[in-house]
């Protein structure tokens, strides 16, 4: 008998979850900032080297400093790899000897991550278009309460005031983008409504808001047109405005956004033109033709998917008539068979058997005709609306 029981190590359960875009950008930002610091460490000027050396000595003592002096050239040439402890010490020390613009460059690495955060934090599966402004107001409040935390080695070189200003600038850029997104989405939906309102077909529209990565259920555009958005944000103080580097970040992003807004207007015009072309082609189809089109277009504030279905009503009516004719024929045939069976002995069984088969067929025909009637009715109802919801 064995005293040892075979033990199986309990494996941890990994719940696989793909990284969100914001998480990917966070890891990219961290990697870029770390690589930037390490590359700066490898190319320190003599003055910076001296300054870093004296900080290193005062912080980590004589022996660590001697080791640093001895190994620096090997680290620089990549002959010797750095330990985790040394890397952490370099990350802590090198940003202190960087120039001011280099330190702000570290901040810039985190901007794409911070600016993508609302996509994760404010995202919802579906929002009804009638609650658009409420959704945006909630997103605005989420942005105001959002934390924009920098990595420890980056935040160590900035004052609290600078970090606070930086965060205010990010909030300002995000809230401006939110405001623009709301106005864009509103204009998009109104333009789509105006383009599609005269279409004599079943039209359904789904719209995905780019900035908040959320699907809009579009039903009532008049309700959207009545909505407006008022956002508030903490103001920047005049002292903040004196910080050249932070101001240049604000100017850079605000002007780029403005430029992109003009570009998006051009793309939107192309999108509307594309939709009009599809509708024009649909209008030239005959009554006996059935049309289905799925159009995906990039508008100002999001991506719209427009489905246009035109069924041939005369064809459906013809199908119903055919079904009824077949049913009539079947009933007549059955009556004829009954008449025939009454004059022939032993034919009753065959007639009963045939009757059951005929009944099955009759039911199938009736069902097919009924489905066509329902299809026509549903189509007419959906056709009367500009945007039908599924």
């Amino acid at each position: 008998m064995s005293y040892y029981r075979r033990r199986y190590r309990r494996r941890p359960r990994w719940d696989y979850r793909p990284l969100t875009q914001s998480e990917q950008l966070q890891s990219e930002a961290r990697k870029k900032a770390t690589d930037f610091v390490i590359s700066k460490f490898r190319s320190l000027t003599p003055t910076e080297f001296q300054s870093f050396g004296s900080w290193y000595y005062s912080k980590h003592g004589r022996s660590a400093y001697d080791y640093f002096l001895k190994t620096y050239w090997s680290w620089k040439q990549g002959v010797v790899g750095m330990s985790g402890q040394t890397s952490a010490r370099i990350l802590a020390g090198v940003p202190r000897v960087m120039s001011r613009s280099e330190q702000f460059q570290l901040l810039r690495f985190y901007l794409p991550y911070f600016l993508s955060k609302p996509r994760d934090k404010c995202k919802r599966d579906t929002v009804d278009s009638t609650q658009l402004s409420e959704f945006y107001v909630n997103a605005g409040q989420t942005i105001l309460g959002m934390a924009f935390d920098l990595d420890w080695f980056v935040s160590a070189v900035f004052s609290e005031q600078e970090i606070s200003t930086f965060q205010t600038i990010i909030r300002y850029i995000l809230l401006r983008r939110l405001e623009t997104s709301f106005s864009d989405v509103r204009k998009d939906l109104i333009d789509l409504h105006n383009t599609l309102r005269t279409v004599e077909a079943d039209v359904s529209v789904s719209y995905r808001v780019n900035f908040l990565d959320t699907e809009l259920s579009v039903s009532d555009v008049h309700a959207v047109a009545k909505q407006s958005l008022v956002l508030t944000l903490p103001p920047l103080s005049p002292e903040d405005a004196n910080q050249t580097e932070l101001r240049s970040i604000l100017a850079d992003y605000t002007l780029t956004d403005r430029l992109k807004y003009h570009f998006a207007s051009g793309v939107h015009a192309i999108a509307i033109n594309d939709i009009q072309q599809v509708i024009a082609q649909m209008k030239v189809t005959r009554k006996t033709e059935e049309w289905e089109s799925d159009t995906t277009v990039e508008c100002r504030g999001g991506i719209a998917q427009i489905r246009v279905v035109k069924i041939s009503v005369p064809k459906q009516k013809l199908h119903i008539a055919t079904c009824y004719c077949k049913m009539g024929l079947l009933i007549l045939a059955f009556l004829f068979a009954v008449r025939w069976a009454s004059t022939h002995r032993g034919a009753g069984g065959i007639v009963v058997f045939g009757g059951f088969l005929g009944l099955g067929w009759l039911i199938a025909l009736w069902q097919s005709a009924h489905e066509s009637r329902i299809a026509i009715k549903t189509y007419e109802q959906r056709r009367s609306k500009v945007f039908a919801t599924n």
Partner: protein
Amino acid sequence: MSNEDQKSLRRINPQDLQNQLVNLEGLPPEKQLEIKTKMAESAVSLQADLGQRVIKSRTAEHDMAVTMDHIKDLDHNKKIYSVNQNFETGAGNVKISVKGGDVNFIIPVLIVIGLIILGLVLILNLK
């Protein structure tokens, strides 16, 4: 959001803030030049992208018209057809499906003739 937070917040007139802060003239010349150069480069690349989108849109428009002409020909030739086409446009893509040319109209005619014949047979038989 608490009342205190609400009080500390004020409506920002974007124009005011932009005039104050998004004002390149307040920045050092090298920063101004850097931002202006970046803007110019972005404007050129966005403009080029827009131009390409317009070309794509025009091509898709032409292709769609050609496909519809083809469908019209099929209809004239009394053929049953189902045409599925994808077009890449300047702002996205379009999938079109057209079905038509059904010659099933002959079926009810045949059925009516059948009914008449059957009815006649039945009447004759009953007599």
